[in-house]
Protein backbone atom coordinates (compact mmCIF):
# COMPACT_ATOMS: atom_id res chain seq x y z
CA UNK A 1 0.00 0.00 0.00
CA UNK A 2 1.13 3.50 -0.63
CA UNK A 3 2.48 5.51 2.22
CA UNK A 4 0.77 8.31 3.95
CA UNK A 5 1.36 11.77 2.55
CA UNK A 6 0.93 14.93 4.54
CA UNK A 7 1.19 18.41 3.13
CA UNK A 8 -0.05 21.93 3.63
CA UNK A 9 -2.29 23.56 1.08
CA UNK A 10 -2.37 27.33 1.21
CA UNK A 11 -2.27 28.87 4.63
CA UNK A 12 -5.14 27.13 6.23
CA UNK A 13 -5.41 23.62 4.88
CA UNK A 14 -3.62 20.46 5.63
CA UNK A 15 -4.06 17.41 3.47
CA UNK A 16 -3.41 13.77 4.29
CA UNK A 17 -3.68 11.09 1.62
CA UNK A 18 -3.51 7.33 1.86
CA UNK A 19 -4.47 4.48 -0.47
CA UNK A 20 -6.34 1.39 0.63
CA UNK A 21 -6.83 -1.96 -1.07
CA UNK A 22 -10.57 -1.94 -0.56
CA UNK A 23 -13.62 -0.38 -2.12
CA UNK A 24 -14.64 3.19 -1.23
CA UNK A 25 -17.73 1.61 0.28
CA UNK A 26 -15.68 -0.43 2.73
CA UNK A 27 -13.33 2.42 3.62
CA UNK A 28 -16.30 4.72 4.16
CA UNK A 29 -17.92 2.16 6.45
CA UNK A 30 -14.69 1.80 8.42
CA UNK A 31 -14.78 5.56 9.00
CA UNK A 32 -18.41 5.77 10.08
CA UNK A 33 -19.37 2.49 11.80
CA UNK A 34 -18.46 2.77 15.52
CA UNK A 35 -17.63 -0.94 15.80
CA UNK A 36 -15.13 -0.61 12.97
CA UNK A 37 -13.71 2.77 14.08
CA UNK A 38 -12.91 1.27 17.48
CA UNK A 39 -10.67 -1.28 15.79
CA UNK A 40 -8.25 1.14 14.18
CA UNK A 41 -8.55 4.80 15.20
CA UNK A 42 -6.38 4.31 18.26
CA UNK A 43 -3.17 6.28 17.86
CA UNK A 44 -0.12 5.05 19.74
CA UNK A 45 0.28 1.42 20.76
CA UNK A 46 -1.49 0.57 23.97
CA UNK A 47 -4.41 2.94 23.55
CA UNK A 48 -7.99 1.81 23.13
CA UNK A 49 -11.30 3.55 22.41
CA UNK A 50 -13.87 2.27 24.90
CA UNK A 51 -16.50 4.81 23.81
CA UNK A 52 -17.31 5.51 20.19
CA UNK A 53 -20.42 7.34 19.09
CA UNK A 54 -20.94 8.06 15.41
CA UNK A 55 -24.41 9.18 14.36
CA UNK A 56 -24.12 9.20 10.60
CA UNK A 57 -26.52 11.92 9.60
CA UNK A 58 -26.14 15.67 9.19
CA UNK A 59 -25.98 17.16 12.68
CA UNK A 60 -25.27 13.69 14.10
CA UNK A 61 -23.01 13.41 17.12
CA UNK A 62 -19.45 12.16 17.15
CA UNK A 63 -17.73 11.20 20.36
CA UNK A 64 -14.51 9.23 20.75
CA UNK A 65 -12.97 8.46 24.12
CA UNK A 66 -9.47 7.06 24.33
CA UNK A 67 -7.65 5.54 27.25
CA UNK A 68 -4.18 4.13 27.75
CA UNK A 69 -5.45 1.80 30.46
CA UNK A 70 -3.14 3.48 32.98
CA UNK A 71 -5.36 6.34 34.00
CA UNK A 72 -4.49 8.45 30.98
CA UNK A 73 -7.16 9.50 28.54
CA UNK A 74 -8.79 12.21 26.51
CA UNK A 75 -11.78 12.59 24.27
CA UNK A 76 -13.02 14.21 21.12
CA UNK A 77 -16.47 15.44 20.22
CA UNK A 78 -17.83 16.53 16.89
CA UNK A 79 -20.76 16.80 14.56
CA UNK A 80 -21.33 15.50 11.08
CA UNK A 81 -22.09 18.26 8.61
CA UNK A 82 -22.55 16.30 5.42
CA UNK A 83 -22.40 12.62 4.49
CA UNK A 84 -22.38 11.33 0.94
CA UNK A 85 -22.38 7.56 1.38
CA UNK A 86 -19.14 5.93 0.23
CA UNK A 87 -17.56 9.11 -1.11
CA UNK A 88 -17.50 12.07 1.23
CA UNK A 89 -17.72 13.01 4.91
CA UNK A 90 -17.67 16.55 6.25
CA UNK A 91 -17.46 17.00 9.98
CA UNK A 92 -16.28 19.33 12.72
CA UNK A 93 -14.30 18.09 15.71
CA UNK A 94 -12.49 19.35 18.75
CA UNK A 95 -10.49 17.67 21.47
CA UNK A 96 -10.73 17.89 25.23
CA UNK A 97 -7.35 17.54 26.92
CA UNK A 98 -9.23 18.22 29.19
CA UNK A 99 -9.56 21.81 27.98
CA UNK A 100 -11.45 22.24 24.76
CA UNK A 101 -9.31 22.96 21.72
CA UNK A 102 -10.43 25.01 18.75
CA UNK A 103 -12.76 23.43 16.20
CA UNK A 104 -11.14 21.53 13.38
CA UNK A 105 -13.12 21.31 10.13
CA UNK A 106 -12.46 18.11 8.22
CA UNK A 107 -13.47 16.85 4.81
CA UNK A 108 -12.73 13.21 4.01
CA UNK A 109 -13.08 11.96 0.44
CA UNK A 110 -12.97 8.37 -0.79
CA UNK A 111 -12.26 8.03 -4.49
CA UNK A 112 -12.06 4.74 -6.33
CA UNK A 113 -8.74 4.16 -8.09
CA UNK A 114 -7.08 1.21 -9.85
CA UNK A 115 -6.03 -0.48 -6.62
CA UNK A 116 -8.97 0.35 -4.43
CA UNK A 117 -9.51 3.68 -2.74
CA UNK A 118 -7.65 6.93 -2.48
CA UNK A 119 -8.55 8.67 0.74
CA UNK A 120 -8.02 12.41 0.98
CA UNK A 121 -8.41 14.05 4.35
CA UNK A 122 -8.51 17.84 4.17
CA UNK A 123 -8.38 19.78 7.40
CA UNK A 124 -9.06 23.45 7.74
CA UNK A 125 -6.81 24.58 10.47
CA UNK A 126 -8.75 25.75 13.47
CA UNK A 127 -7.67 29.30 13.89
CA UNK A 128 -6.52 31.20 10.87
CA UNK A 129 -5.29 34.13 12.92
CA UNK A 130 -3.23 32.00 15.19
CA UNK A 131 -1.76 30.16 12.29
CA UNK A 132 -0.93 33.39 10.47
CA UNK A 133 0.68 34.72 13.61
CA UNK A 134 2.65 31.50 13.91
CA UNK A 135 3.89 31.71 10.36
CA UNK A 136 4.80 35.37 10.74
CA UNK A 137 7.02 34.85 13.74
CA UNK A 138 9.93 34.14 11.43
CA UNK A 139 10.70 30.87 13.08
CA UNK A 140 13.36 28.75 11.57
CA UNK A 141 12.39 26.70 8.57
CA UNK A 142 12.57 23.39 10.37
CA UNK A 143 10.34 24.62 13.14
CA UNK A 144 7.81 25.90 10.70
CA UNK A 145 7.50 22.53 9.11
CA UNK A 146 7.28 20.91 12.51
CA UNK A 147 4.40 23.12 13.53
CA UNK A 148 2.63 22.58 10.26
CA UNK A 149 2.96 18.86 10.81
CA UNK A 150 1.83 19.25 14.39
CA UNK A 151 -1.32 20.96 13.25
CA UNK A 152 -1.98 18.18 10.85
CA UNK A 153 -1.74 15.45 13.38
CA UNK A 154 -4.78 16.69 15.15
Amino acid at each position, binding site marked *: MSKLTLKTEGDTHLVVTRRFAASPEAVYRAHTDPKLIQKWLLGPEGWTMPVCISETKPGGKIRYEWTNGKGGGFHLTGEYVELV*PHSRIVHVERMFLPDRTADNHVETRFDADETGTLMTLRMTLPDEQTRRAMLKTGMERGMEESYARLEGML
Partner: protein
Amino acid sequence: MNATVSLDFVFSALADPTRRAILTRLAKGEATVMELAAPFKMTQPAISQHLKALEDAGLVVSRVEGTTRPRRLAKAGVEAMDQWLAMLRKALERNYDRLDEVLATMEQPKKKKGEKQ
Protein backbone atom coordinates in the same frame (compact mmCIF):
# COMPACT_ATOMS: atom_id res chain seq x y z
CA MET B 1 14.91 11.03 35.95
CA ASN B 2 13.48 14.43 35.23
CA ALA B 3 15.38 14.69 31.96
CA THR B 4 13.02 12.10 30.60
CA VAL B 5 9.95 13.83 29.33
CA SER B 6 6.80 11.81 29.75
CA LEU B 7 5.37 11.24 26.31
CA ASP B 8 1.84 11.25 27.66
CA PHE B 9 2.42 14.68 29.16
CA VAL B 10 3.96 15.95 25.96
CA PHE B 11 1.17 14.40 23.95
CA SER B 12 -1.58 16.26 25.75
CA ALA B 13 0.47 19.43 26.14
CA LEU B 14 1.06 19.76 22.42
CA ALA B 15 -2.29 18.61 21.15
CA ASP B 16 -3.79 22.02 21.88
CA PRO B 17 -3.44 24.68 19.16
CA THR B 18 -3.12 27.47 21.72
CA ARG B 19 -0.23 25.71 23.40
CA ARG B 20 1.52 25.22 20.10
CA ALA B 21 1.05 28.92 19.38
CA ILE B 22 2.55 29.74 22.77
CA LEU B 23 5.55 27.58 21.97
CA THR B 24 5.91 29.33 18.64
CA ARG B 25 5.91 32.69 20.38
CA LEU B 26 8.48 31.46 22.88
CA ALA B 27 10.66 30.22 20.04
CA LYS B 28 11.20 33.94 19.32
CA GLY B 29 12.40 34.57 22.83
CA GLU B 30 11.42 34.96 26.44
CA ALA B 31 7.99 36.40 27.24
CA THR B 32 5.81 37.20 30.23
CA VAL B 33 2.29 35.87 30.70
CA MET B 34 0.95 39.28 29.72
CA GLU B 35 2.94 39.29 26.50
CA LEU B 36 1.88 35.75 25.75
CA ALA B 37 -1.78 36.50 26.40
CA ALA B 38 -1.82 39.56 24.13
CA PRO B 39 -2.40 37.86 20.74
CA PHE B 40 -5.07 35.53 22.13
CA LYS B 41 -8.62 36.23 23.09
CA MET B 42 -7.90 34.62 26.41
CA THR B 43 -7.54 35.70 29.99
CA GLN B 44 -4.18 35.57 31.73
CA PRO B 45 -5.35 32.78 34.07
CA ALA B 46 -6.29 30.72 31.01
CA ILE B 47 -2.87 31.34 29.49
CA SER B 48 -1.25 30.49 32.83
CA GLN B 49 -3.05 27.18 32.81
CA HIS B 50 -1.69 26.39 29.35
CA LEU B 51 1.78 27.41 30.53
CA LYS B 52 1.49 25.07 33.49
CA ALA B 53 0.72 22.17 31.16
CA LEU B 54 3.75 23.10 29.05
CA GLU B 55 5.95 23.38 32.14
CA ASP B 56 4.70 20.06 33.48
CA ALA B 57 5.62 18.53 30.16
CA GLY B 58 9.11 19.99 30.47
CA LEU B 59 8.75 22.09 27.35
CA VAL B 60 8.81 25.52 28.95
CA VAL B 61 10.82 26.91 31.85
CA SER B 62 10.44 30.09 33.84
CA ARG B 63 12.61 32.33 35.98
CA VAL B 64 11.70 34.94 38.56
CA GLU B 65 12.32 38.58 37.77
CA GLY B 66 10.82 40.92 40.34
CA THR B 67 7.11 40.25 40.30
CA THR B 68 7.05 38.52 36.90
CA ARG B 69 8.05 35.07 35.79
CA PRO B 70 9.25 35.27 32.19
CA ARG B 71 8.92 31.97 30.32
CA ARG B 72 11.20 30.58 27.71
CA LEU B 73 11.33 27.47 25.59
CA ALA B 74 13.16 24.67 27.36
CA LYS B 75 16.08 23.19 25.49
CA ALA B 76 14.35 19.86 25.69
CA GLY B 77 11.21 21.43 24.31
CA VAL B 78 11.98 21.43 20.63
CA GLU B 79 13.64 18.04 20.85
CA ALA B 80 10.67 16.60 22.70
CA MET B 81 8.37 18.07 20.13
CA ASP B 82 10.24 16.41 17.32
CA GLN B 83 10.06 13.11 19.15
CA TRP B 84 6.40 13.64 19.76
CA LEU B 85 5.82 14.48 16.12
CA ALA B 86 7.62 11.37 15.00
CA MET B 87 5.56 9.39 17.46
CA LEU B 88 2.34 10.90 16.23
CA ARG B 89 3.20 10.39 12.61
CA LYS B 90 3.91 6.78 13.44
CA ALA B 91 0.63 6.60 15.32
CA LEU B 92 -1.22 7.89 12.28
CA GLU B 93 0.58 5.40 10.07
CA ARG B 94 -0.21 2.66 12.58
CA ASN B 95 -3.86 3.70 12.52
CA TYR B 96 -4.02 3.25 8.78
CA ASP B 97 -2.03 0.01 8.87
CA ARG B 98 -4.62 -1.24 11.33
CA LEU B 99 -7.33 0.00 9.00
CA ASP B 100 -5.72 -2.05 6.21
CA GLU B 101 -6.18 -5.11 8.40
CA VAL B 102 -9.76 -4.21 9.26
CA LEU B 103 -10.54 -3.74 5.59
CA ALA B 104 -8.95 -7.07 4.74
CA THR B 105 -11.28 -8.83 7.14
CA MET B 106 -14.41 -6.99 6.05
CA GLU B 107 -16.73 -8.83 3.77
CA GLN B 108 -17.85 -7.06 0.70
CA PRO B 109 -20.56 -4.77 1.98
CA LYS B 110 -24.03 -5.98 1.31
CA LYS B 111 -25.88 -3.79 -1.09
CA LYS B 112 -29.06 -3.42 0.84
CA LYS B 113 -31.55 -1.15 -0.73
CA GLY B 114 -32.26 1.97 1.19
CA GLU B 115 -29.21 1.47 3.40
CA LYS B 116 -28.34 4.84 4.84
CA GLN B 117 -24.75 4.25 5.82
